[in-house]
């Protein structure tokens, strides 16, 4: 190999190290913290032991961790999955196949990979599958001691997943599942996922709590909802480097990866248990649920609206307004809408009038338009409606611009023309 090629390759290496690969947008919101440079890792906090208790399983190895189902993980016991509201997940996850989901028969899945990009060069080097077995919760952690063990390990993982009644994961519908499926296909292993319901806790968590927490990550959720406090947790972003080090004969960070991965799986169980109790807002023993209760109420209200059940939404809106602080105008607007369609238009109009009167913003414009509609159709008061329209137009002119303004104007033009025609 010539010298110039050597220097050229060396330069490429520097470039590869320098230029952080752009990640897909959808991952960023979940993974903000994972983007740190691996070099910043403080090694002192980490184990320096090689992974122990690995059991040979044919052509690869696995570790099995057992926890008693009564054992707590954070503030919750694993067995509390038995207490969930039966239809909670179908509603939260908007997936009918999750009706009557059997959390006892599920497999809880979390994997560690060598990268987030996807593609054939990414290795799922640690695959954790948790499942209840009688009074125990067992976590099987399939591990690659070398990249050539991948086919055997994935075949075993596929078999374990395939024998469960459903899959529970956090963001796994978008990530873990695809990394496994891709590599299974490369090795001619049939992926087991198509036949199984998949409960991805990320989305229900986001729908209920996202606005009330700094981000939507698993670690944030487990802390806020289940009281999990991890000690010396390894940042997931350092997992690839830990495995690369292990392959190069330095196993010092690997134990931390196993522990991190195990904690993730245990949290899947308790977060699922928590979410399943959200409609009751209490645990089975009657103690109230942790987590931002105002956001939860608002989330439950919106979910009810989404499935067309405004009746059910109304009390949740009331609670959200009671519990939340700060600017509630938009929540009040939504509550007014729910009132209007559940036989209480007068109360709705009071709220609209209050919203229009107390401030001047886009919401006032919308409230005025709603009032105009009510005046026109219910109160049969075209001239009152026209007044509202005039007011809405004036406000819009002051607080809106660009396309929004154009949209309101077009709407008002039509409405006013109709009203004028009616008035003669």
């Amino acid at each position, binding site marked *: *190999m*010539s010298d*110039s*090629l*050597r220097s*050229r*390759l*060396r*330069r*490429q*290496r520097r*470039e*590869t190290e320098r*230029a952080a*690969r*752009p990640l897909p947008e959808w991952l960023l919101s979940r993974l903000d913290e994972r983007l740190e440079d691996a070099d910043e890792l403080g090694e002192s906090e980490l184990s320096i032991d090689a992974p122990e208790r690995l059991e040979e399983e044919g052509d690869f190895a696995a570790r099995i961790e057992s926890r008693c189902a009564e054992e707590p993980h954070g503030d919750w016991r694993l067995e509390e999955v038995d207490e969930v509201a039966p239809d909670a997940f179908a509603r939260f996850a908007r997936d009918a196949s999750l009706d009557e989901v059997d959390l006892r028969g599920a497999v809880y899945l979390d994997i560690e990979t*060598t*990268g*987030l*990009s*996807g*593609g*054939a*060069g990414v*290795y799922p080097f640690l695959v954790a599958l948790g499942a209840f077995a009688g009074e125990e919760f067992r976590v099987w952690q399939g591990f690659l001691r*070398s*990249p*050539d063990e991948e086919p055997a390990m994935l075949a075993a993982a596929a078999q374990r997943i395939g024998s469960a009644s459903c899959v529970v994961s956090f963001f796994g519908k978008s990530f873990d599942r695809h990394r496994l*499926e*891709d*590599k*299974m*296909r*490369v090795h001619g292993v049939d992926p087991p996922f198509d036949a199984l319901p998949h409960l991805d806790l990320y989305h229900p968590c986001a729908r209920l709590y996202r606005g009330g927490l700094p981000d939507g990550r698993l670690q944030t959720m487990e802390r806020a909802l289940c009281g999990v406090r991890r000690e010396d947790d390894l940042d997931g972003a350092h997992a*690839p*480097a830990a495995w*690369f080090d292990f*392959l*190069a004969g330095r196993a010092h960070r690997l134990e931390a990866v196993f522990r991190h991965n195990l904690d993730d799986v245990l949290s899947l169980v308790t977060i699922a248990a928590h979410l399943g109790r959200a409609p009751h807002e209490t645990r089975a023993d009657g103690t109230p649920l942790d987590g931002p209760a105002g956001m939860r109420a608002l989330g439950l209200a919106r979910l009810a609206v989404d499935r067309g059940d405004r009746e059910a939404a109304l009390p949740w809106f009331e609670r959200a307004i009671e519990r939340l602080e700060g600017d509630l105008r938009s929540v009040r607007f939504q509550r007014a809408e729910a009132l209007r369609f559940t036989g209480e238009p007068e109360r709705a109009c009071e709220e609209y009038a209050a919203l229009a009167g107390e401030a001047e913003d886009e919401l006032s414009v919308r409230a005025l338009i709603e009032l105009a509609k009510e005046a026109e159709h219910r109160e049969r008061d075209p001239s009152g409606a026209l007044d509202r329209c005039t007011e809405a137009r004036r406000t819009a002119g002051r607080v809106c611009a660009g396309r929004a303004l154009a949209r309101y104007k077009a709407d008002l033009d039509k409405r006013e023309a109709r009203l004028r025609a009616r008035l003669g």
Partner: protein
Amino acid sequence: MAFPGSTRRARTRAAHGAAGGVPGIVAALRGDPELAERFELWHVEPARAGRAAPLPAGLHPALESLLARHGLDRLHEHQARAIEHALAGEDVLIATPTASGKTLAYTVPVLQSLLESDGAARAIWMFPTKALSQDQSTALNKLIASLERDWHSFTYDGDTPPSVRRTLRDRGHVVLTNPWMLHQGILPNHAKWASLFRDLRYVVIDEVHTLSGVFGSSVANVLRRLVRLARHYGGNPRFLLSSATVRDPESHGRNLLGRDVRVVTEDASPAGERTFGVYNPPLLNLVAGLRANALEEARRLAPRLCGPAHQTIFFCNRRTAVDVLTRYLKEGARKMGLKPEEVRGYRGGYLPLLRREIEAGLRDGSVKVVISTNALELGIDIGRLDVAMLVGYPGSQAAFWQRAGRVGRRGGPSLAVMIARSDPVDQYLARHPEHLFGAPREALGIDADNLVILSEHLKCAAFELPFLADAQGAVGDFGPSEHVPGILDYLAEESALLHRRDDTWYWMADAYPAQDVTLFGNEPDNVLVLDAETDKAIGEIDREGSITTVHEGAIYQVEGETWKVERFDYENRRAYAREVKTDYFTEAETDTEVRVLRLEEKLARPGDEIALYRGEVHVTTVATIYKKIRFYTRESVGAEDIQLPPEELDTEAFSLTLAPETAEELGLHGGDRSAGWRGVGRLLRRVAPLWLRCQPSDLGLSTEIKSRHFDRPAIHLYDRVMGGVGLSTSLFRDHREVFAAALEVVDACPCRRGCPACVGPVEEVGARGKETAGRVLHHLVRNAPLEPVPID
């Protein structure tokens, strides 16, 4: 799709049905005394009867009846032969002119494989440009639909919405795509395409003559990766290639695929009489040799070439020219008996829907005149037209014939006229038009084992599947280069990208290498042009062209409408424009500078009488000013500065310098004589690709009569790609052969004072250019070899 059956459809105002038609146009042009002396040449190729052949034996009955329904119970002989070779399991390259029915020749084997396997077989169709595949997909789907099976073809490219990609992956039998998508999207994610690779019977690649030089060498490596993956899943695809007529297609096919291909070159389709005219605009200024503007001449000739009874295509070499001529011809449409909407512009930057509409209009005959860049040079199906006008020589014989090949219906007469510009090459061809009609002389270079390109693609390939060494330590599935194991070891030990375990290299890094590896072609890194009012896209333009077309103040034209660019957001690749009425358009000028950063190696004679260097340079191209030019009169109505960051290129260069005394002795002075030095540079750039197996366009050239860095005459030849790919390093190594070859060209060339085939036409190198260049080359070759000298 150039499907012979489809060109037979009735056209109400077909050329030969109208009074006079093409023969009438030719007769009128030839009979006009004013024009007679401007046409430097008339060349007529007589009508040719085609040679038909029966359908190859063994075709599936459903396919036979499909062909029969299209009136294709007999094929052109070359189609039949290509199909037979393909069905016999050979890789085939069909190198025949545009619209000779190449598409049919590779469609039949693909459909046959689908029918034989009852829909299990898969195929990839790759097009070297983005624009092509939509059109082909539509046509192919129609054919497949008429087989009445639940089979599908689809386009998978950057425009495919992520939401439908999965469905397409699962349901597509034929995937139409481009090299970039294959490189960055499909191959690295091959698991998602496992069934495609497992059942992959054919890889069809269209227009392979565009796959040459650094781009072609990169694509050859992409194909190595593709074959490797197919084999992993148990597939073993055959290649069906199509190409324009090129020199030595056998070598080109072998260089691209790494194996021998069966070549079919004889066009057996029937052709009507074809008339070619080479037109030289009148001299405006005898002393300066200045001729009338070619675009203006095209406008003046247009009424004689355009009309309601036939279809005419104009080819321009620049986007601005297309837009200006479109405006002229739309405005003059009535006088030609046309409606303005029957005259259309067409170029790459138009949005896909608009392009589809124009293509359809050309096919169904409702568009009578189209003005295009090279965007219509490649195989987009617009049927065959009647008259072509080439405003300027397109730069290569292959492109000339591709453009001229757009005209000539089955058995009908056609006309192609080339207008020479004042450009020296055009003027030379105007005087020696026989150059145009000889055998193709341009070689297509591919070097798939270029070490930089190879190592880049080894990274990508290692990401896709581990590499395995055999008992001798060799790697068998990535070409013949002996360097492969060494590069892999380096990537493992030094770069920490791979992990070697026993005899296997595994990708072992948190990175997606294809993202950082470029194919060096015209990559889709486009600037979007938006209506500043509505934010709606009105066009797009490639990055290189953006600095001269959508700078602030530029007039951006789409189909004769004029838009003024208000803001160019260079960082985010967006230009915002507002529609205006103007009587001018804009033309920008650029300036390129080569700065020597670091010299790495030097060869010289004592006292640096001659010195050669290899090193790193920084090349800056900056848009300097733009001129406002009035439509029609072309008078300049003002000029303004362009404020844009320069386009920068860090790359490797080969530099040649002469001591000032030597330059003096050899007759190199400033002014006219320095043109001889430029001639040497041009000649080196022309012959170097023969050694480097690249394209002349892969090398940049800068000649200085007094270099700022060296303080003497210098010629820089640099890799025209970011980072360089080792071309100038090879040039440094092989300089003796390259100099000798250059000298041989000059000595052997029968021209007296320079021509495009040697140092350049006399208009460019001056009266003594050839003589001076010859002296310089003699001096470079004659003496003792140069000695290595440490860099000071």
